[in-house]
């Protein structure tokens, strides 16, 4: 590292502290007692697990919320990855009448702002009597046009010779998809899956309006409503609750940060 780079490093380090400090102080505060939550810096002098114990023995179904969020996000991501990959494969590599029309209709749906479809979708699920179920928390995310676009671009780049060779070998279209296109695109599929997982796990507006019982809440909504309601005065417990709520995303970040950033980079290039 040359001396000329020192100012750059200093600025980046200050920036990094600003980025990380709030979460570290959250973690620190979650181990403090209620009365000491604002004193003595971010490292607790007398760390205690009392806040966590209180939360898990209270009537807040935190574990249920986290499990709701995780299962809903995983199922939605799997659905998106499978159906988007199938459709993108067909749109990019198979020829059929109306293919271009379908592709342009799907891509232009990227412009529809989510707010415009939110209320009609709520009424749709309401008339199907599916509000406040896992269906309503999973299904709306399956119409993911971004994934189609992402995989379409990738599949276009796979040479036609591979498809033709598979065809000559007598492999069916489905077989070609599963034995050539899926293996070649695992990186893109994983990226799409992760981005979908993150979006669904962190979504706020839709789970807020589409669920109404405590047991069906996702963790983002559940914690938010608890925070507004009963914990506004006890910051230490609120911090412990919040920290628990972000553990799954922290793990995803630690293990898949590279994939996530890759996916987001491609977002920028594709649009």
């Amino acid at each position, binding site marked *: 590292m040359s001396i000329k780079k020192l100012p750059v490093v200093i600025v980046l380090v200050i920036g990094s502290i600003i980025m990380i400090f709030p*979460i570290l102080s959250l973690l620190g505060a979650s181990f403090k007692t209620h009365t000491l939550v604002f*004193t003595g810096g971010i490292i607790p002098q007398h760390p205690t697990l009392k806040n966590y114990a209180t939360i898990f023995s209270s009537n807040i179904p935190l574990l249920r919320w986290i499990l709701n969020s995780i299962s809903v996000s995983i199922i939605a991501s799997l659905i998106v990855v499978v159906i988007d990959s199938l459709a993108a494969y067909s749109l990019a590599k198979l020829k059929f009448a109306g293919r271009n029309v379908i592709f342009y209709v799907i891509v232009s749906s990227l412009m529809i702002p989510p707010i415009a479809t939110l209320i*009609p979708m709520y009424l749709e699920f309401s008339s199907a009597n599916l509000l406040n179920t896992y269906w309503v928390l999973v299904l709306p995310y399956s119409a993911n046009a971004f994934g189609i676009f992402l995989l379409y671009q990738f599949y276009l780049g796979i040479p036609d010779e591979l498809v033709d060779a598979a065809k000559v070998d007598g492999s069916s279209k489905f077989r070609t998809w599963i034995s050539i296109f899926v293996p070649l695109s695992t990186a893109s599929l994983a990226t799409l899956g992760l981005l979908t997982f993150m979006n669904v796990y*962190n979504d706020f507006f839709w789970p807020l309006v589409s669920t109404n019982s405590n047991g069906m809440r996702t963790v983002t909504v559940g914690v938010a409503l608890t925070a507004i309601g009963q914990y506004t005065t006890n910051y230490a417990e609120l911090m412990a609750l919040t920290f628990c709520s972000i553990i799954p995303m922290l793990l995803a970040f630690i293990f898949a940060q590279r994939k996530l*950033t890759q996916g987001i980079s491609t977002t*920028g290039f594709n649009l």
Partner: protein
Amino acid sequence: MHSGCTQHWGDNMAEYNSGLATLHQPIPTRKRSFKVAVLDNLGSFSFTVPYLVAFILFAAIPVIFGLYVSLHDWNPVTGAGQFTGLSNYLQLFNSSTLAGHDFLIGLRNVVLFTVISVPFLVGIPTVVSYLIYCGPWKGLFRAIFFFPSVLSVTAITTVWSWILATQGGLLSSLFGIQLPWLTQQPFAWISIDATTEWWSMGFNIVILYAGLTQIPTSLFEASRIDGASPLRIYFSIVIPQLRNIISVVTVLGTIASFNLFAQSYLMTSGGPGSSTEPLTMFIYNQAFNEMKMGSATAMAFLMGIIIMIISFIQYRVARDRG
């Protein structure tokens, strides 16, 4: 899927037959029976069916049904009421009606938020991504700046509400800065803006950084040999080369800012007064507290149209400048 599998045999047979045919005839005719062609088309199409079902149910129907709802009085419990024509839309342009008044305030608030937040959301990441590009430990710094983006809006607003709390907040207890961050203007907007920047800046840094790595390094080397200062390189190489990505980030940032909801809902409840209440929150109240689904959908559609127009103009401006 099954139909895709089985019908393919027919497809193969057709290929095989036409292959045989070409062996016997000097001029290849590529004649396939109509039935085989239809089946082949259907087989290829069948791969899109699972997605298309989702698309129709959760994108197409909501748009069409929403248009229908917006032309009616619509109660979520009793369902469709009277057909009201365009009056749900027309009232939004008349600020003497309640909905029009709300729409105007919400629009004004969200435009104010967007105008303040987007320059920071684009400006700071352009600089930071360039610093990361120039400095050491690129992967580490990129990861750190990206980190808040993976957190939920609940988590980040909880943390920042605690940091900013006037009585006993972290800022007031650690640094003695006691200001009504969440309860008075302009502090309420500053808080919501700053929290949003902190939360979503990393997303743009990642995109812009990826753009920087696409710039040919020879450009940087050439200008360094010519003795250009880092500042000069930034303005005459980095910014022009990143123009496309900067415009993408600007459009995405504008759309996201226009959709502001949870930060206001959770940090200030739209207050003080309704000065931080964005359009989305008025729509939410109209639909789920006032139970006026028709009028709320009309508001959402008009908001959607406004977003589309703004994005379109931004794209055009960015394109024409280049």
